[in-house]
């Protein structure tokens, strides 16, 4: 493989993995925050309002940064893999439009929810929070259609054969629904575990329980959607399935072990929380859930290497879609990667101050 194409593939993989890690945190915690904000308004429950705000901090800190990695994915795709990007935009117009519309609603409503908290009527604020939380799920509803298509091109195949735009056909792709439900359950579960970890630092037993409930509950749902997606790969994307069970088997084993650990520790922690105690390992459940998400994404995308698109038991190499219109200046690419790492360091520092050192006030200032 051309070195520039290899770097493009690895860079794209890094961007997708980081994006998915942050998105998992923000989608799940968004839903939890909206739910408890609404509960606080309906039941006049001060704890629920404070909990919603604490959980929402995770989003406030990380959403835009997760968006950055989404942008990085787009630039990597268009810059390094021009053909596949152009083919996707010409073919998957509707799923991409759904994702963009969702992003357009999601990000401003997050900022609006945070900064108007206490300034507009709680009922209106709850409504904005719900729009914020639910619009987030529209983003993977659009983008996961692309992932399903590159693993099993149903709509793209139709387009290449007929020249007609397939419209909503990406949603008839059998891989889409298992992948989407798998993703939706995973992000809610991850958000719950992240919330539980955060609230464990506050020694808030009720908060830990409130996080663990969706964490464990949707992890159990994953026990249905996960295997369903895994076996649907066997049926519709056998080359990818073979790679996952071949050279990527160690990663799969580690992921499964992490899921088992998460489930066992989550259940034990939930039991303890119901009895009014916070187990010492709750704070590690969030990072463990995020680690599981990262492994899942690496398995889903990395196992495609050296192909970018899978056609049953055949693969279309990344070279076929690559930008070969110029010699990509590799020193510039390395400098860019170095600066991206700097941004991760700065972001981590900001997140540390915001979440662990409580630099963001729980009650708004000024």
């Amino acid at each position, binding site marked *: 493989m051309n070195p520039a194409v290899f770097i493009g593939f690895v860079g794209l993989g890094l961007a997708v993995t980081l994006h998915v890690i942050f998105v998992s945190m923000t989608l799940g915690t968004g839903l939890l925050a909206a739910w408890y904000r609404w509960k606080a308004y309906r039941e006049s429950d001060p704890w629920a309002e*404070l909990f919603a705000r604490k959980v929402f901090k995770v989003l406030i800190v990380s959403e*835009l940064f997760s968006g950055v990695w989404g942008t990085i994915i787009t630039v990597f795709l268009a810059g390094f893999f*021009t053909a596949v990007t152009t083919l996707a*935009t*010409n073919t998957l117009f509707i799923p991409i439009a759904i994702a963009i519309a969702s992003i357009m609603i999601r990000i401003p409503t997050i900022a609006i929810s945070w900064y108007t908290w206490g300034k507009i009527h709680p009922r209106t604020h709850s409504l904005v929070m719900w729009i914020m939380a639910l619009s987030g799920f529209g983003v993977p509803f659009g983008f996961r259609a692309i992932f399903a298509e590159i693993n099993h091109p149903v709509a793209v195949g139709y387009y290449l054969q007929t020249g007609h735009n397939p419209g909503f056909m990406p949603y008839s792709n059998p891989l889409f629904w298992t992948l989407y439900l798998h993703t939706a359950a995973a992000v809610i579960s991850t958000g719950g575990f992240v919330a539980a970890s955060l609230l464990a630092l506050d020694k808030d037993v009720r908060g830990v329980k409130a996080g663990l409930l969706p964490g464990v509950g949707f992890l159990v749902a994953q026990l249905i959607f996960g295997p369903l997606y895994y076996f649907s790969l066997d049926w519709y994307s056998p080359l990818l399935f073979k790679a996952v069970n071949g050279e990527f088997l160690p990663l799969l084993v580690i992921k499964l072990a992490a899921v088992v650990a998460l489930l066992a520790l989550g259940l034990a922690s939930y039991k303890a929380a119901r009895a009014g105690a916070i187990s010492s390992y709750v704070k590690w459940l969030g990072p463990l859930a995020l680690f599981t998400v990262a492994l899942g994404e690496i398995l889903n995308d990395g196992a495609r290497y050296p192909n970018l698109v899978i056609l049953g038991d055949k693969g279309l190499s990344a070279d076929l879609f690559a930008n070969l219109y*110029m010699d990509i200046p590799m020193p510039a690419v390395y400098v860019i990667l170095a600066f991206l790492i700097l941004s991760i360091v700065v972001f981590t520092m900001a997140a540390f101050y915001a979440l662990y050192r409580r630099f963001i006030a729980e009650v708004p200032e000024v």
Partner: protein
Amino acid sequence: MTNPNPLLPLSALGIYFHGVYISLTFGLPVAIGVMLWKWWRTGDRDYYKAARIMTAVLGVNFALGAITGTLVEFGLVQIWPGVNLAIATFAFAPLALELIAFANEIAFLILFIVTLGRVKPPTSIAILALYAAFAYFSGVLITAVNSWMQAPWGVGPVAKTLYPFMPEYGPNVVDVPKLVALKLAAVATGQPISLLIEKPGFAQEVGIVLKDPMVALYSPYALVSIFHNILAAILIGMAVATAGWAYRYFKTGDQKYLKIVKPLAGAFAVLFVIQAPIVAHFMGEVVVHYNPTKFALMEGAETTYHNPIIALVAYGDPNKPIIGFDELEKACMNNTLTVGDLAKALNLPQTLKLAGQSVDISALASVKLSDLCLADLQKAKAYMPLIHTVYYVKVAFAIIGGLAAAVLFFYFYRVPGLSAIASAIAKIFGDERRRVFLLALLLVLGTVIPAVGGWAVREIGRKPWSVYGLLYPSEIVTPVPYASSPGFLAFAYLVILAVSLGGLYAMYLVATREYKFLELLKKGAGVGQ
């Protein structure tokens, strides 16, 4: 094929809203920095509170800027997928570097918001400065990409071959036969370029098109545009912030708001002096040189005429005539080549083999380049009434903005003679509360209208091309029919307008509303009981 015409206003709407938020994103850090500086030097908490409120507005605004930026980005790759060829070549370096800017911009903004009030003012100023540096760097790179579309630096004589009145666009770092073959294939098939470049293996077949990936970064057009656009955005953001605080002063008469307006007006005036007479002049010069049709449209030059003032400003020579469309048409007529001659000179075969399909260009062989050139000039000329009017409205409001900035500056900062004149002028507006507010409002009008008009002149003025002298909108538009269907257009307009107008209203709420409904939160946090 998709008709690009309904999609052009949609793109323009998205870009304009992005421009609104970007202006605040660029201007508010300066305003916040001024407040933090004053807080640091005086210890006065009013300045800190002002900085904090503006930071909250910046937070909402940044989110809106980021999503409209995403919209513009997706608009480019989805609505105009032919642009992907540019992203893979000329725009690759600026957009790849933009990743550095965008990622660090957000990381430092989050760090600034999180630590504001928790660290000392100089530390906050330093973090804010780093955020602003990356934000401006992002502006530099995006302007470089847009500038390449205005003056495609690096294609040397390619555009001049088709349009003899055009200059050469820098060094020739492209494989001309390949570039022309792609263009001819699009013309011959009547299909957008994206249908060629989407084919797996197409890039392998075509091979290297661009020899210098960094060429877009050293275009003189880009250099001047960068200073012009970024300063304009900073000025708009500062004008809005100044007017916001002036309005509070107008409503309440509270001197603490006047205290905030004063340093903002001072910083604004200094930046305006750099922008209006200096940078804007150089911008005009590069337009004269690199966009001859745009300059003729701006000056309403259907035919060539003499105007010593405009000639002095534009060419530095009052005796030179203002080149009109008649001269440009004459230049077209001098081109006696046909498409066939051009193809022959470049050793292109009559049948191009592209992405597994054969494209016969022999039907184009007899087409005269002079006819193409004249037809495009006619299309450009249709925009003359619009561009000419918008350009002079923009200039008029820039002058109003400059006068308002000067009056406000000398009103606040005493300079013998000038301050007396400023005070006399200011008195026309009524009492002090009214005069400060109305002058600040004129700053907004004097920056926003020139920017809106300037961008319209920049973008519409380069028509009928999307990439000046090289590509039409129809060649880069999406082939997807839904894109121009009434349903999709209605949906897209609705989402853009709802989010953007809702966002603006939210920024107003954030800036003006006091906290009223925090009882539950305070109870939960155990405060205020």
